[in-house]
């Protein structure tokens, strides 16, 4: 499996996850979390260049899947057998279905736009715009247009390409611990990953974080599903208190 994967083809982690569910022909109500999280991570590792700002979203999902996998491995608490036990995957299933609903809705909208399904057409308002027209002038759009033209202009200039060296996970682990010490033992996931400049570095940072969690040197806390995660430095066995 040495081929490169184009992560860009998936417009987000939910899309990739749905793809993997289809690909494995598994039931959405009985997701094999261990298998999917493994494949999900494999995709991230094998993916080609990808927009950095979106990589963070994929990593949030990856950490959620790993967390879910861990919960699935825990034995059911004794004495609670009579109560209907909640499947830890239920929230994910609902999220996936909700997402799939809008993905399908988007396809229906495209069909409407292209006239593949019956639609109406409005009149041609451009034909009659006379003296009553006002220009839609928004300063934000003006600034954006200026930035775009300058960027285009810059692209034409020859640019230096710095070769990328590989990222060492152990170095990254030290780096995370150092940052946590500087930040009094607590940093947000997003803030931590905002430091990374390159995709390989992001992935290295993420693997380093996983290793630190495994070694129980840091703890990760997520307040809500897909919400930001706080990384906390552990002192002995106690979590450092926030704030």
């Amino acid at each position, binding site marked *: 499996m040495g081929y490169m994967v184009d992560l860009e083809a998936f417009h*987000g982690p939910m899309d990739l996850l749905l793809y993997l569910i289809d690909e494995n022909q598994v039931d959405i109500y009985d997701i094999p979390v261990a298998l999917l999280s493994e494949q999900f991570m494999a995709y991230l590792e094998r993916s080609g260049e990808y927009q950095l700002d979106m990589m963070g979203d994929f990593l949030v999902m990856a950490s959620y899947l790993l967390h879910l996998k861990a919960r699935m491995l825990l034995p059911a608490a004794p004495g609670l057998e009579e109560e*209907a036990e909640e499947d830890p995957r239920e929230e994910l299933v*609902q999220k996936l279905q909700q997402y799939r*609903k809008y993905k399908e809705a*988007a396809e229906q*909208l495209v069909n*409407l736009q292209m006239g593949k399904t019956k639609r*109406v057409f409005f009149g041609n*308002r451009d034909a009659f715009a006379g003296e009553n027209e006002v220009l839609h002038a928004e300063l934000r759009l003006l600034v*954006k247009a200026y930035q775009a033209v300058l960027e285009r202009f810059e692209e034409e200039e020859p640019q230096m390409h710095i070769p990328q060296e590989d990222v060492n996970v152990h170095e990254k682990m030290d780096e995370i611990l150092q940052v946590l010490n500087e930040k009094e033992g607590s940093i947000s996931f997003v803030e931590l990953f905002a430091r990374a400049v390159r995709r390989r570095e992001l992935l290295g940072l993420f693997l380093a974080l996983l290793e630190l969690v495994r070694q129980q040197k840091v703890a990760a806390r997520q307040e809500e599903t897909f919400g930001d995660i706080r990384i906390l430095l552990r002192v002995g066995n106690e979590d450092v208190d926030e704030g």
Partner: protein
Amino acid sequence: MLMRDEIKAAAEAVLFVRGEQVPIDELVEILDVPLLDLKGIMQELVMEYNEKKRGLQIVFEDYTYLMCSRAEYSDFLARMNKTVQRRLSPAAMETLALIAYQQPVTRTEIESIRGVKSDKVLNHLLDKGLICEAGHKAVLGKPLIYATTQEFLRIFGLAGLKDLPRLEEDKKNVRQINRRRDND
């Protein structure tokens, strides 16, 4: 004061030239006819268009009137319009669909469903005039809420939001989850 037929003809002319949804209040002002009278007259006009199976129709929704083509003729018109259609990226379409069905909706709600940061794609849709900021939600932080625009209806050929294609209800799905859990 105008005759009934003249009012109809004038309303036709106004709706035609505007080429978008015209609020009934505005029509009252332009035609100088009392609201109640106008409502009755417009109801007749809408029916006349429907009876004769013309190529055009007048649709009343949300206190606005819209003159647009009848859906039966969408094949001819789609063929004709092909060259001017611009496609949105899948990410933009997905976000737009979400807003269309859930509106009004905040950015946080959009991001929680999509699982990705959506500020760029929202700006793109705002720039295209397909969505607009429709006030603030009355919760902590008063986040902006987004809604679709007339331009959205125009591009996707909808006479109103009630014409959005029906989606499979997720209620059915929730029931399925519960049943399955019981079986396990």
